[in-house]
């Protein structure tokens, strides 16, 4: 069920350049259903900034009623978010949207992420591994300084890193790595820039895939029609990233 709660900040730290890891605690954490869902955060009590910010859930700790997010502090809202300290309260609405369907993977899954699209893949990897699925992680970043969670992913499975400037791992994009890897997986899951999602879809037209999309949002719950995408399923309708997504099966979204 969707809840709005003033959750308590448990921990916040910068884990890569401008990349923050933020853990919060509260009842809302117990509502989390799927990896790939997101929450909508009000970063200040004032009207400026006004709108909530959508941030994906990167890992869930049901026992502690906590979850963790990873985000890049770039604009005004995420900048303010990065100033929150342990003990502060944070107005969070969630969990929102539909995440990655873990039950769709059979044996081996590719998890393909780019930049701040990487975080939701971590909880996904955890849950897939719990189900006995082998996960291979192909993660792309700008540069070495922007890389995070490499070790954590390694603990869960084979992990390949690409950086645009070549300062770490393979130089180039995740697709450069994908080209070198066997296609012996049954399902892929991907989150990252739209161009990356497109490339991944093109690379594996025959495979079952699930992609997580981004759009600028208003309400975050499906009421305002801000976050729509055209879809192959209908000429006369859109799908909403916030409530129909953010995760869609490959081939559904026209971007």
């Amino acid at each position, binding site marked *: *069920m*969707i809840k*709005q709660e003033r959750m308590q900040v448990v921990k916040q730290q910068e884990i890569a350049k401008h990349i923050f890891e933020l853990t919060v605690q509260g009842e809302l954490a117990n509502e989390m259903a799927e990896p790939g869902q997101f929450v909508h955060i*009000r970063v200040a009590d004032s*009207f*400026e*900034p*006004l*709108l*909530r910010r959508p941030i994906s859930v990167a890992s869930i700790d049901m026992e502690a009623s906590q979850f963790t997010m990873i985000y890049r502090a770039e604009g005004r809202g995420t900048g303010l978010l990065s100033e929150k300290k342990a003990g502060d309260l944070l107005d969070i*609405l969630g969990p929102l949207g539909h995440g990655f369907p873990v039950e769709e993977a059979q044996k081996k899954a590719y998890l393909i992420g780019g930049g701040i699209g990487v975080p939701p893949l971590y909880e996904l990897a955890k849950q897939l591994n719990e189900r006995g699925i082998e996960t291979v992680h192909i993660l792309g970043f700008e540069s070495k300084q922007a890389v995070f969670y490499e070790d954590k992913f390694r603990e869960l499975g084979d992990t390949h890193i690409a950086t645009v400037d070549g300062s770490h791992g393979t130089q180039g994009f995740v697709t450069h790595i994908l080209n070198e890897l066997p296609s012996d997986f049954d399902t892929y899951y991907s989150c990252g820039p739209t161009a990356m999602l497109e490339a991944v879809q093109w690379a594996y037209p025959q495979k079952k895939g699930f992609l997580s999309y981004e*759009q*600028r*949002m*208003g*309400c*975050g*719950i*499906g*009421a*305002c*029609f*801000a*976050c*729509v*995408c055209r879809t192959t399923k209908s000429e*006369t*309708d*859109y799908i909403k990233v916030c*409530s129909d997504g953010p995760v869609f099966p490959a081939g559904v979204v026209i971007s």
Partner: protein
Amino acid sequence: MTDLTVELPGLDLKNPIMPASGCFGFGKEYAQLYDLSQLGAIMIKATTVETRLGNPTPRVAETASGMLNAIGLQNPGLEKVAGQELPWLEQYDVPIIANVAGTTTEDYVEVAKAISEAPNVHALEINISCPNVKLGGITFGTDPDVARELTRAVKEVSSVPVYIKLSPNVTDIVSIAKAVEEGGADGITMINTLLGMRMDTKTGRPIIANITGGLSGPAIKPVALRMVYEVSKHTKLPIIGMGGVTNVDDVIDFLSAGASAVAVGTANFVNPFVCPEIIGQLPERLHELGFDSVKELVGRSHRL
């Protein structure tokens, strides 16, 4: 006991608070969060004759204490709204105000006639002020003569009272209000959004795909309040006021300025529980201010 009820043409409201059109869809999403029967009324998303896909994305952009939107009247069309959305809403004990939009007078008339016959539609809100569509919308709301004639045409076919939604993007809002009064409007809703723009500073490109968008939220409250005050001073029509309402004191301000009821738009995105919260706080706030009923407060600023 504080009396929150409000009687307006076609509308016997439990309380003066309702979500504004376009900020609440057709109610389904917010119904997951609270019981819609608590609301004074619901203004549903604009309905047009045909399905509308609206504008490309990005459709929203944040601004200082406000936001721009250019949804472009996306809606499933008259048939689906009348056949699915409105019947679904019948499970709640809440009057619906149907927001009607179109490109031509004929469009408005067709939607108004059909949708006003739905059992739970107690009033129409004629959107002559949408800034985000190329044809129709705002062009009906900026010329008094055009506004008057459209009002007449809609009034002729509607089986429920008709409220006209005014645009703030005009030199003289009172002249438009008077024109729709002459045209036979039963009430006014105001204001729609102010036309605005935001750039991506890095690229110099407008962020909204439609280039311009409608500005809403706390930033526009002073403009909305001024217009409600002026229109209530110069016409006899009841007003449903809106523009930047986020809390109970904003509601008091709009009532004081002359609105009989108040709609909440953008604030639903910031706090999805804002409407029931305000409704819950109203009795105590009225009491603190020395009022026993909402009605006593209406137009207070004019009597001082």
